[in-house]
């Protein structure tokens, strides 16, 4: 009987251990969940020197984590911070403030 109890205890420990290890991993994955990726299609994006304005203007927004400019596609990719959001109106305002014209917005298009 004692042997059975010992075996059962050992088995329960073995089964619970991976769960205990997995729990922090899952939590870490939750924390590292990426924010929304927004792609803004912009007209007039032909000059790198001038397009720096988009990177600076959009990058100053609190919800924005990173800004990538693609001159070839005329696109601005905005990585939003996890847990934050950026509405269309704000994006349009930021693009206009940078001196460009917004054509359309694709959400999560780059995922």
């Amino acid at each position, binding site marked *: 009987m004692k042997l059975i109890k010992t075996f059962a205890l050992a088995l329960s420990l073995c089964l619970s251990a991976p769960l205990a290890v997995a729990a922090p991993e899952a939590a870490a994955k939750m924390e590292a969940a990426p924010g929304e990726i927004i792609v803004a299609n*912009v*007209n*007039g994006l032909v000059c*790198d*020197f001038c397009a720096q304005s988009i990177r600076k203007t959009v990058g100053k927004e609190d919800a924005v984590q990173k800004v*990538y400019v693609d001159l070839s596609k005329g696109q601005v990719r905005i990585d939003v911070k996890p847990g934050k959001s950026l509405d269309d109106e704000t994006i349009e305002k930021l693009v206009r403030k*940078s*001196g460009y014209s917004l054509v359309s917005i694709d959400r999560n298009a780059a995922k």
Partner: protein
Amino acid sequence: MPSRYLAAGLALAALAAPASARPVSYAGGWTLMQENNGMFSSLHTHYSPTATDSIGVYVEQNWDMDSTFTGLQYNRLVRRWNAPQSQGNLYLKLGAGLADPFGGGAAEAASFGGIAADWETRRVFVSYDVRARDFGPDESVSHAARLGVAPYVAEFGDLHTWAMLQIENHPEADEPLTFTPLLRFFKGPFLLEAGYTIEEEEFLLNWVWRY
């Protein structure tokens, strides 16, 4: 006058001709630019409260007009055409201040006004700039046009290179029509232009820093 010292510094730092750099930055942006040619050297720093306006200080030492201008400059983006593969701009530039004649003499109220237009794709650049100056006893009108080609298409953040030809017309100058082949480089917030005005045998050196 402090402007004389500044102008002297400009003259030492510079050698040559005008940049068709855009006079308005993004909202909240600052720009520092210097243009140098056989006719004048200038330093202009401005702040853009909006994406269509900028205001700043402008200093120009003009050897053709034998005076140094120090004053304020206001720039207005009158119209911008944003297209999928191109952009066009129309600017108005106005300046008011004092003109200090070389070799002494009383400073006089001075002003200038100009219109600039440009259009570019990632491969081709064209611009036109006309400026009228009233520096006290001396007045002048000048025109400048540029045609540029990018030998390669660079991506965002890379070094961009342009080969350009600048054609200038100064009706009252000894050489009313001048040609300046030049190279324009820019990377990030820095722009540099270097060239040579054939008729006047003068170098061109312009730079812009946006921050």
